[in-house]
């Protein structure tokens, strides 16, 4: 298992190298001039030439690539011409927010999705099943930003009016944006705000960061939730019809033990695949959710970088995201082996 992991990590090197070449070529092929994008409409030919010279945009492409790769190998990811901030520093600053949000969204999707999928499968065709299946369809169909705004309006801003003598504004008990109340003077060590709060024993800071996560996590987790519900349901229905579940029943085992030991473990394999893929996708940033809740992760930053043809940021960020994606997939592959002994590598 260890050798397998090491081999997979080593295999990432050529993959990332290939990606850096592709990425470099791709970005240069985008229409538009980075210097012009940087300077705006009033740029003079002289200032454009100056920017091109500073960032080496006037060099031949091969030369540019070699310079970039050379710096990369020394751990220098360059800095953004737009903001002047170093790429690596910005990434480390913002990525924790994205991770926190993605993890919270996946925790929500998994803890709700697997039980709902399981019980829907147990009573396939029943009321819960119908609600779960149609609800999960709705979860995929409703655009994330629509859901995000709905949640924000109901639970953060507050609706006017009353229902049965109950003021709808009372529902708005959650913060509407940001990662933490700026009035809380929190110490930041890792930039994972919840974790920081726990590490520094600033419980109020941790709690505040946590409640800031709730609405964005639900909005972002809606699609993974829907997929997990459907996947779990289909998988559990399959496993419930397996002969070994009948064998377990013939042993007189308690239903709860049959569920835990014989049904869920076998049903989890395809669900784990989906969870891995979805986690990877969420880690590459959530532009829409991040903008609705003013949650400063990498999604919104990447979006600005694309509009501004910020090559340094795009190259650096996308390489990091690819690395994270590959690592998440490695974890999923290792998990397969834990769940299913048939897939264990010798």
């Amino acid at each position, binding site marked *: 298992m260890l050798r397998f992991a090491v081999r997979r990590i080593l295999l990432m090197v050529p993959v990332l190298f290939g990606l850096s070449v592709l990425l470099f070529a791709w970005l240069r092929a985008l229409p538009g001039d980075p210097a012009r994008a940087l300077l705006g409409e009033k740029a003079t030919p002289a200032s454009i030439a100056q920017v091109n010279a500073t960032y080496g945009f006037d060099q031949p492409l091969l030369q540019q690539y070699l310079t970039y790769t050379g710096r990369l190998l020394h751990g220098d990811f360059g800095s953004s011409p737009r903001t002047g901030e170093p790429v690596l520093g910005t990434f480390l600053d913002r990525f924790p927010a994205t991770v926190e949000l993605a993890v919270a969204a996946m925790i929500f999707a998994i803890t709700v999705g697997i039980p709902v999928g399981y019980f829907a499968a147990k009573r396939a065709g029943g009321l819960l099943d119908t609600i779960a299946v149609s609800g999960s369809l709705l979860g995929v169909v409703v655009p994330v930003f629509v859901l995000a705004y709905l949640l924000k309006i109901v639970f953060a801003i507050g609706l006017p009016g009353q229902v049965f003598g109950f003021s709808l504004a009372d529902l708005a008990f959650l913060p509407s944006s940001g990662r933490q109340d700026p009035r809380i003077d929190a110490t930041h060590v890792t930039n994972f705000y919840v974790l920081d709060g726990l590490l520094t024993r600033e419980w109020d800071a941790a709690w505040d960061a946590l409640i800031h996560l709730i609405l964005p996590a639900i909005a972002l987790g809606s699609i993974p939730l829907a997929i997990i519900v459907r996947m779990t349901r289909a998988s559990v229905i399959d496993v419930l019809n397996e002969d070994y579940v009948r064998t377990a029943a013939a042993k007189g085992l308690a239903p709860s033990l049959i569920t835990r030991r014989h049904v869920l473990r076998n049903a989890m394999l395809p669900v784990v695949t989906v969870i891995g893929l979805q986690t990877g996708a969420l880690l590459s940033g959530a532009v829409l959710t991040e903008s609705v809740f003013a949650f400063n992760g990498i999604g919104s930053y990447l979006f600005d970088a694309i509009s501004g043809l910020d090559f340094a940021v795009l190259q650096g960020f996308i390489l990091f995201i690819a690395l994270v994606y590959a690592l998440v997939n490695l974890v999923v592959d290792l998990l397969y082996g834990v769940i*299913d002994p048939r897939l264990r590598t010798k």
Partner: protein
Amino acid sequence: MTETRTDATLTRTGRRGSRGPVNRDEVLLEIKDLRVTFQRRGGPATAAVDGVSFSVKPGEIVGVVGESGSGKSVTSMAVMGLLPQRGSKVTGEVLYRGENLLTMGQRQLADLRGSELAMVFQDPMSSLNPVIPVGLQVTEVLRRHQDISREDARVEAEDLLRRCGIPDPRRRLSEYPHQLSGGMRQRALIAIALACKPALLICDEPTTALDVTIQAQVLELLKELVNDLGTAMVMITHDLGVVAGLCDSVNVMYAGRIVEAAGRRELFAHPRHRYTEGLLNSIPRLDAPRGEPLQPIPGTPRDTIAWSKACAFAPRCLHADDECVVGDLPLVQLGRVNHPVRCVHPAPEEEPHG
């Protein structure tokens, strides 16, 4: 409930160990007019088992023979309460030591399953959980029904696997099903079924999925083990060869009904139902003249008529005439004792078979 359980355990301990002191008049399992109908939503109901009755005495080995689709597996599932709750309807009575399993509470039935009633399934490849070590699959049934520690259960499991002919049982305990051959897996399933020394073992075509040479070994093992434990067995099979070597009495099923029931010798010597006769004729024989073609039963089990209108076997029967399609046929005793047959034109009694 506790009292009946204690009683049952006592009686069982009394005759455990050897097959000698079995009271042959006592009835262990009595199936009365068992009917199983399956119904899909909106579709018509189909009767997979249509009024089956037979009984099993302690220590007895009873065969249930029939082609695919004759309802023999469904009968066994109904006895164990393993049919899906939705879409199936079970009526009649299944009396185990006088208690009706069909009306018993789920918990009470679960207490009996695995300890008093056990089952060996058809396909050893799919009947073991692929993601759990074999050892746990044996010990979980021990720990469910016996007050036994984890370590003791492991020792017991090792012993069980050894007695079921699995070499190097200690190593096998920590292995997974995919690391065992088909024969080994069936042996493991037998070990699981017999772990709590049940009074009744139902085997649903236990050798169908196995290699021919392994089939014989597994049957021999089953015979030996049930004999040692004094366990009664219901052997469900389509293989008359299995019946010939094993069973005390045989029930022949066709399209959900028993068409003939007799002791083993009686059945092989004097088959009366034309279906049984056809089955026996279709067995290849070593003493038959060379080059003589086998005589198959024409048609397939799908060529059938509802029992309420006629003999379901009539469309495939060489002796069928108008009399066979007039109405519901009863199971009647024909001349000899304990040999009921459901046939209008039974094979003559004198005709020596083969």
